[in-house]
């Protein structure tokens, strides 16, 4: 299954919708801040949700890499999933 159709992508979209509380058109290429309007407080909540729902900690040094939805999906598949 390609990453764009993966369960991870669907879950990430669901989490972003919950945190940003808006009917957003979330695409794989969407930039969290520029396209989806996420503010710094939203990013903090998103990180908490990714950690809680995928069950692993995201080290601080990895956070700057997570700019787009695609970055997050790839990161979760590579690092947070068992």
């Amino acid at each position, binding site marked *: 299954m390609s990453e764009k159709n993966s369960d991870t992508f669907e879950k990430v979209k669901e989490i972003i919708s*919950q*945190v940003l*509380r808006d009917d957003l058109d979330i695409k794989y290429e969407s930039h969290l801040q520029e396209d989806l*309007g996420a503010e710094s407080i939203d990013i903090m*909540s998103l990180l*908490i*949700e990714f950690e809680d729902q995928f069950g692993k900690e995201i080290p601080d040094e990895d956070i700057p890499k997570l700019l787009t939805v695609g970055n997050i999906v790839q990161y979760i598949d590579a690092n947070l999933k068992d």
Partner: protein
Amino acid sequence: MNRRVVVTGLGAVSSNGIGAEEFFNNCLNDKVNVQYIPDQWRKYSSFNCGIWSPLIEPDYSKYGITDIEKKQFDKTTLLALYSTFEALDHAGVKYSLVDKKRGSYSIDNVDPFKVGVVIGTGIGGVESLISSYSFQILNNAKKKLNDIKNDNPGIADDVQNVDDLLIKAKRFSPFAVSMIMGNASAANIGIRFGLNGMNKTVSAACASGTAAIGYAYEAVKSGKLDMAVSGGVEYLYDEYGGLYFGFDSLKALCRAGDIIEEANRPFDKARTGFLYSQGGSGILILEDYDSAIKRGATIHAEIKSFAETNDAHNIMMIEKSGKCIERVIVDVMKQAGIQPKEVDYINTHGTATELNDEVESAAIEKIFGDKVLINSTKSLIGHSFGASGALEAVISVMSITKKKVHLNRNIKDPVRDLNFVRESTDAHIKTVLSESFGFGGHNTAIIFTEVQS
């Protein structure tokens, strides 16, 4: 300007009920929630008391508070928001969603700069403080213990036993600062409903709730505000029982005895201290009388006066002569232009500590004699600290509207021969005095009356 101030909405969460109606009815029906403390706490200390009144947490989603927000807010803020929604709905105040992303509203047909918030809390977001600091203190220590365990299989069980005692939160919350700060509840109410008027937090220990309602009353009376969200909130819980131990070690808490539901005995000669409540919230919507009438609101009671004095004596002990408590009662009646014989019912501070009940009942007897109805809401829900005065204000107002007063539980041999309510009863209550006192010597008193049009 000297305007009449009325109560148009009520919200409450207590250890015996969620929602003002359920809370009041459960008090009338003698429903209490007394439990043994969590076993886990006993790993950290031994306790004199060993019982408490845990909070039944509400379903925050009822008012659109999300699971995401539950990780952004301390429990005090969540409780205060929940009770504010209930109180605004009860007041028939209409509000509209203005920012879906933030989940924020604006109140219809008001000048938002004339709507304010005054919330009392004894300690604020202390649960969040302890939770995040547990991570800060223990995270690296636990990693090192794990290394020791792996390197030394012979002592692994002993190391694990130590490790098990070191309970830590999952993370240092990135929201910790905004969760801990004492003004978080008041600020978050203002943010949620777009209230641009005075936004104040009052900390006067166990008198915080009554003081907050009193200051909100003064702001509406003076014309500074047209409407105020006022009340008190507290949530005193930690995984280690440390907050509880703080009160227990002072010997301020009741002794459990054989029947734990009978341990908490305000104004009884056999009282041994107060029942620790996990917390709660009480919110009152106050409005200028003319504005309330104009929008067709149901008016539940009028606030006639508020007064405060300070013992200026001892940080934790009531001044024994009771002169400052007498003075606050005299002041609040003088301001209201009310004679002692006109007071139908006193909702006391009534903690069940030796000194409070002695001094408070002596002051009541001296000023009012033995006719006025007296009870202690804490006899049913325990002591919820900064929330207590606000929850007692809810009871005071509902005693007027429902024409009923709840019993003073567990009173068999009263400290004085006063008119303690032995069983919940019908009573046409026109005037209520509610008293709250707090560590730091804070004495507060407020008078609610039936509304005369």
